[in-house]
């Protein structure tokens, strides 16, 4: 009888095999597929040599530019999450509202020639209007959709956020129609200059520098001011912060205003990159910025900045680098696919994001 029983080592091995579930197999399959696409695609593309250095550089710069916009929007998601543990899904549409409102001012300035004649003042006015609009709408959404649920642990605020997102989209559609409008294209952003033999359109440094300046300002506010420190304190321990005399509601309002300002700047820049605006403009950059925030580690301010640039560059360079090499035609159609595949992969394999905070180590 004893001979019929499997030996101890054998039993252990069977036990180990039994512990490998179907899900494990699928996850490993996904890992292998991704490594294959990334490595194989890259090698394939480089061997084919279909793209010139100039094209690579163009893609990279475009990625940095659009990544800066994603980063600005992502900051709004990440700060609100840090304070309220809530994904503000209306944030992309808040951005649209600001950009859309500023469109009317920008268009007026453009038609009168003022935008071309006085770029600095015009841009300050346009962005200021967008920032104010975004902040006000963000505060209204917070007051109506989130505050009533502050002390209730349900999905209600999340569902409310999605509802607010639709509400904003369709109220702008109702007010201004569903046609795509051309966002003004000032004459001083036309043309390009040359560095190391590569041509760079003026739009790119313009967007990247404004995005960096806005992020630098935000970083200083969050890290060096009393309100910013209180924000970080509330995000760490809301009750202890209240015991120290910090008015938590005030901090939440402050957070939504900061996020709104970043979204306002991001929205104007986004529209200046693509030269168009309509009621649905906020959706895609909103979701991508959310992906960027998760990618960087949601709740983490530098993470959102890093995640934004990273996502922008990968989705811009990725189609040519990874997809072309594995024989996919017209890879640029799949840009968005790359962005959202990254979101799913991060959630599965590294839910804490690049800078590794939160979600995984959340306090109860």
């Amino acid at each position, binding site marked *: 009888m004893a001979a019929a029983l499997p030996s101890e080592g054998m039993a252990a091995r069977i036990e180990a095999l039994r512990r490998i579930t179907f899900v494990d197999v699928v996850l490993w399959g996904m890992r292998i597929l991704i490594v294959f696409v990334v490595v194989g695609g890259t090698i394939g593309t480089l061997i084919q040599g279909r793209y010139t250095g100039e094209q690579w550089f163009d893609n990279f710069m475009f990625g940095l530019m659009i990544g800066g916009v994603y980063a600005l929007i992502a900051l709004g998601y990440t700060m609100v999450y840090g304070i309220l543990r809530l994904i503000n899904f209306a944030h992309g549409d808040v951005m649209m509202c600001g950009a859309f409102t500023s469109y009317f001012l920008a268009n007026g300035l453009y038609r009168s020639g003022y935008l071309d004649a006085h770029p600095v003042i015009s841009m300050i006015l346009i962005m200021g209007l967008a920032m104010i609009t975004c902040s006000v709408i963000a505060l209204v959404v917070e007051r109506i959709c989130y505050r009533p649920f502050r002390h209730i642990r349900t999905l209600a605020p999340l569902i409310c956020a999605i509802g607010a997102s639709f509400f904003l989209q369709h109220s702008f559609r109702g007010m201004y129609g569903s046609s795509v409008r051309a966002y003004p294209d000032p004459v001083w952003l036309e043309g390009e200059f040359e560095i190391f033999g590569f041509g760079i359109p003026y739009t790119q440094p313009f967007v990247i520098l404004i995005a960096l300046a806005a992020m630098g300002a935000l970083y200083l506010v969050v890290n060096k001011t*009393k309100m910013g*420190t209180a924000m970080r304190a509330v995000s760490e*321990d809301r*009750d*202890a*912060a209240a*015991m*120290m*005399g910090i008015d938590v509601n005030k901090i939440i309002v402050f957070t939504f205003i900061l996020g709104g300002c970043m979204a306002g700047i991001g929205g104007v820049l986004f529209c200046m990159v693509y030269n168009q605006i309509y009621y649905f403009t906020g959706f895609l950059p909103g979701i991508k910025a959310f992906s960027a925030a998760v990618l960087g580690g949601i709740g983490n301010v530098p993470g959102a900045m890093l995640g934004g640039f990273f996502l922008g560059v990968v989705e811009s360079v990725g189609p040519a680098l990874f997809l072309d090499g594995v024989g996919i035609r017209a890879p640029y159609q799949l840009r968005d696919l790359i962005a959202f595949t990254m979101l799913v992969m991060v959630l599965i394999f590294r839910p804490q994001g690049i800078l590794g905070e939160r979600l995984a180590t959340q306090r109860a």
Partner: protein
Amino acid sequence: MAVLDVQNLHVFYGQIHALHGVSLSVDKDEIVTLIGANGAGKTTTLGAISGVLPVAEGEVSLDGQPLGKIMPHDLVKMGIVQVPEGRRIFGRLTVEENLGMGAFVRKDKDGIVESRERVLEMFPVLKERMGQVAGTLSGGEQQMLAMARGLMSRPRVLLLDEPSMGLAPMLVEQVFGAVQQVRDQGVPVLLVEQNAFMALQIADRGYVMETGEISLQGSNRELLENEDVKRAYLG
């Protein structure tokens, strides 16, 4: 007149009647301790005083002024600060930022600088650690920081919840020494402690709580010599 006066406090957790009319007072220049077994209602009492828990009945007054229903963050402005159980310092902020948050309600820049110098004199260990992230401090240092942070608002009375929790005996002595210093600096302390013996050593007066009521009160000497207290809490 007592600095802090609590009359007939009742608190409910849903249907459960947690505090049945607790009355106590803290005078100028004294440490008053609230001792009792786990679940006797010590922390609940503190929570009711500092406005974190809703009070069903009873009254808290500060310097003779009844406080009524006030949000916790406004109570800090009036001078009641609680140093919570488990310290609850902001672990990702630096020591300096933590102290700054303690002074959040104050606007007088010079006064804040002066207060900071005073608490650093009281807790010199913090001085070398000002730029350090608070989460990296040892347990004893974190307790010191929690007290220092509480003192930064220049309170009229300091509520201390279980400062000795989770600390090695030597550190407990240090922390309790610091509590005495707080009193000597002119801030009366209401001290909630499981470690009844240590608490009575430094306190001027004490209250013993049992199942939501004050069952006994007296000076520290009386309580230390009381047979019931000895049997129940001092072993």
